[in-house]
C-alpha cells in the first residue's frame, strides 16, 4: 500500500502513456531515436538487475514449496508448506536460536557501535587537530576484507593459547573464546546467548563502529556550525546542546543508520561465518547457507524455505524504508 503511494502522486489521473508532459523537470515528449535511447538506458540495466536479482529471489520462493535436490529440474515435486512446517516443528531449535542471535545482534549494534560511533563522530567534529588521523584509524577495519578480519580475530585476538584477549584477560590460562557455547545469558535450557557469540559481537563492533562514525560525521559536518555556537552562548551545557540542538538535526542520518543497522543485523553473514568455527552459533544467514549450499545442502527445498524466512524478515523493512525515502524526496 505504501509502495504505490508515491507513484500515484506523480501521475494521478493522467492517461498512462509515459509521453505526457509533466509538471517539474523535463518530460517524456521524446520521439524517434531519443525515445529508443531512453528506453534502452533503462531497459538494459533493469533487465540485468531483474534477471539476476529479482527472478532468482522469486525462484527461491518457488523452490521453498518443493523437495528439489538441486540437480535435475525434472525432479521437482511440490510439497506445499512441508518445508516450513519442518523448520518450525523439527528444526525449530536451530531456527529460534538463530532468530534470537539476530535480535541480540540488532540490539547490540544499537547499543554498542551505534552509540559509540555517534560519540566518536561528535568528538571528532570538534575541530580537533589530527581528526583525520583518528578517523582513519577507526575506519580502517571497515575496508578490510572479511577474510583478513576473520584471520585477525581468530588468530591474533582470540587464539586460545596465545591470543591478545587471552594475554589480557586470561590471567595466565588459555581461554577458548570462540568455542565456548555455554550461555552467557540463558533464556531457557535451550535458548540463550552463548559466550562465543558475545566474542563474535566484539569483533563485529570493531568493524561496524567506524562505519557508523563516518555516517554521523558526515551528517554533523552539514549542520551549521553557528547553531552549536549559539547553543553554547545560550548557556546550554554540552549534553543539552547535543540533545536539543544537534541531535534533532541528525534525523535523516538517524534514519539511515537505523536502516543500515536493521538490515545488517538481519543479513549479517561474513564475520560470523569466518569466526563461527564450530558452526553452531547460528544466525539466519548462516543457517540458510549451510542448508542451501553446504555439503549437507542436498535439500534445496528446505534451504530455500530458510532463505525465504530471512527474506520476509528483511523485505518488509526494506520496502517501508525505500518507499518512504522516495516519497519524501519526490513530493
Amino acid at each position, binding site marked *: 500500500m505504501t509502495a504505490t503511494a508515491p507513484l500515484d502522486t506523480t501521475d494521478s489521473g493522467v492517461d498512462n502513456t509515459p509521453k505526457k508532459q509533466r509538471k517539474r523537470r523535463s518530460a517524456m515528449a521524446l520521439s524517434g531515436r531519443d525515445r529508443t535511447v531512453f528506453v534502452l538506458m533503462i531497459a538494459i540495466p533493469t533487465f540485468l538487475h531483474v534477471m539476476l536479482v529479482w527472478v532468482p529471489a522469486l525462484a527461491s520462493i518457488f523452490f521453498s514449496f518443493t523437495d528439489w535436490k538441486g540437480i535435475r529440474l525434472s525432479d521437482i515435486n511440490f510439497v506445499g508448506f512441508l518445508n516450513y512446517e519442518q523448520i518450525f516443528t523439527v528444526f525449530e531449535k536451530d531456527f529460534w536460536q538463530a532468530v534470537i542471535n539476530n535480535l541480540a545482534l540488532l540490539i547490540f549494534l544499537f547499543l554498542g557501535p551505534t552509540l559509540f560511533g555517534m560519540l566518536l563522530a561528535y568528538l571528532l567534529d570538534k575541530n580537533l587537530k589530527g581528526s583525520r588521523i583518528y578517523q582513519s584509524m577507526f575506519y580502517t577495519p571497515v575496508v578490510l576484507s572479511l577474510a583478513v578480519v576473520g584471520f585477525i580475530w581468530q588468530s591474533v585476538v582470540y587464539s586460545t593459547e596465545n591470543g591478545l584477549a587471552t594475554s589480557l584477560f586470561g590471567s595466565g590460562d588459555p581461554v*577458548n*573464546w570462540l*568455542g565456548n557455547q555455554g550461555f552467557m545469558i540463558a533464556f531457557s535450557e535451550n535458548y540463550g546467548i552463548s559466550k562465543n557469540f558475545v566474542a563474535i559481537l566484539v569483533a563485529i563492533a570493531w568493524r561496524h563502529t567506524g562505519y557508523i562514525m563516518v555516517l554521523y560525521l558526515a551528517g554533523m559536518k552539514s549542520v551549521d556550525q553557528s547553531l552549536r555556537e549559539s547553543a553554547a552562548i545560550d548557556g546550554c551545557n554540552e549534553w543539552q546542546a547535543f540533545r536539543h540542538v544537534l541531535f534533532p538535526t541528525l534525523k535523516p542520518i538517524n534514519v539511515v543508520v537505523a536502516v543500515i543497522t536493521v538490515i545488517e543485523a538481519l543479513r549479517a553473514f561474513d564475520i560470523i561465518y569466518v569466526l563461527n*568455527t*564450530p558452526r553452531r552459533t547460528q544466525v539466519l544467514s548462516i543457517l540458510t547457507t*549451510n*542448508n542451501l549450499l*553446504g*555439503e549437507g545442502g*542436498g535439500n534445496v527445498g528446505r534451504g530455500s524455505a530458510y532463505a525465504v524466512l530471512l527474506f520476509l524478515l528483511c523485505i518488509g523493512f526494506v520496502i517501508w524504508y525505500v518507499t518512504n525515502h522516495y516519497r519524501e524526496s519526490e513530493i
Partner: protein
Amino acid sequence: MDELQLPKSPSPSQVGFSVGRRSVLKTTALAAGVVAIPGLLAACGSDSATDAGAGSDAGGAAAEPATGEVTLGSNYSNEVPQAGLQAAVDALPNEDVTVKINEVDHNTFQENISTYLQNPDDVIPWFAGYRMRFFAAQDLLGDVSSVWPALDGELGDGFKTASTGDDGKQYFVPWNYYAWGVHYRKSVFADNGWEVPTTFDEMKTLAGEMEAAGITPFALGNDGFWPAMGTFDQLNFRINGYQFHVDLMAGKESWEDDKVKEVFSTWAELLPMTMADPNGRTWEEAAAALVSGEAGMMVIGTFVGQQFPAEELDDVDFFPFPEINAEHGIDVVEAPIDGWMMAKSPKNEAAALELIGFFGTAAAQDAYLAEDPSAVAPSSKANSAAYNELQAKTFKMVSEAKFVTQFLDRDTSPEFASNVAGPRLADFIADPTKVDSILSDMQEQAAVILGG
C-alpha cells in the same frame, strides 16, 4: 527421490565375513571387511559385487592411447599431500597427457561439493561409500567401470564394492586409506611405566594415572565437528557392534534407543578426562598437546603423524580403541578410503579414464606415499616394504579386522551428518547433561532427513 531411498537391510552375504582370513591375502581380508559397508549402501538390493563388472567393456577406453589435457581437482591444500599428488601425476606413463591440477582448499571444496559437481574437473577427489553413491545416484558422476578390469588384480573385491554405485557400475577408484585409533607417545608411556590398555576399564584406569601425573588423558579438538564423530563411532561400534552402526546411520535404529544412550553415558565418563572446551579447538591444536606431552592419548586418524616433527615420528604409536563389550571385542576398524571419481561428461574422457585407472595402481600410490607416509595404499601390489612402523601397523590392523567402517559422515546422508550429527555431538560434549533433549532432537531430525 526414489534414487535416494534408503537401503534395505544388508544381506548376510554382504555383512558377513564370507572370505576366510586364513586362506587369502591380507588385503583381501580387508576387502571382505569393506564389503560390509556397502551393505548399508547397496540400495537397489542387487548383489553389487557380482554384477559390477558386467557392463564394462573390458578396458576399452584405456586401450586407446589418450592425448591432450585432463583437469584434476585437488582438495589438498598443504604442501605434503600436494607434493605427493604431483609425484603421482608425474609418474603417469603416458607422456601425451598433460594434467592440469585445480587446487581448492579442503573445507571450501567440501562445503561446495554439490555445486562443484555440477561444473567439475574431469577427475574429482572424493570419498568411498555412501557419499560417493549419493552423487552417483544423482547422475553427477561418470562411469569408470572400464578401468576396473585392469585393477582387479590389485584392488580387492571389498574396494571394488566400496567403489560401486547403486546401479552396479563403478564410479570410484581407491587411492589411499588410513585408520582411526588411540594415538600416544611411546616415550611418555615408557617413562611412566604405562601399558597399552586392552579394555575400556584399563583405559580409564590409565587415564586416572595420567591425571595423577599431571597429564591430560585425552586430547580433543572438535573444530569442524568430525573429531567428535570419530569418537562417537569408536564408542558406538565397540558397545553395539558393526551392524548397529550401519543401521543407526541408515535411520533404521533410533537415536533414542537405550543402546545409543549407553554410548553417550560411556562417553560422558571420558569427558572429564578430556581437554576442556574442545569445540573451539582445531584438531591440530589438540595434537600439539599430544606432541608436547601435555596430553597422553588422542582418538584420531593415523594422519595425526603429520603433526609430529619428522625426527619424532618413531615415537608415535597407536592402539585400537579398547574392548568395551566382549560380544564385539575389537572386531571393527574405522578406515575411511579416499579416491577419485570422474565427471559425468569430462572434457577429455579418454585421458580422464587413463588417469583414474593409473591412480588405482601401485605405481601411482607408491609415488604418493613416498611423499606422504601417513596413509596406506589400497593396491595389494604397493610396496609395503617401504612402510614405516605406523603404516605397517595400520595395514595390519585393517587387514585383520572383521568389519571396516568408513566414517560417520561417510556412512550416512551428508545432510544428516553435517547439519544434525555434527552440531548435536558438539552440543553434547559442551554439556553432557543435555543428552536426552539432544537425542530426541537427533531422532526427530534423522526421521525427517533419512526418511525413516
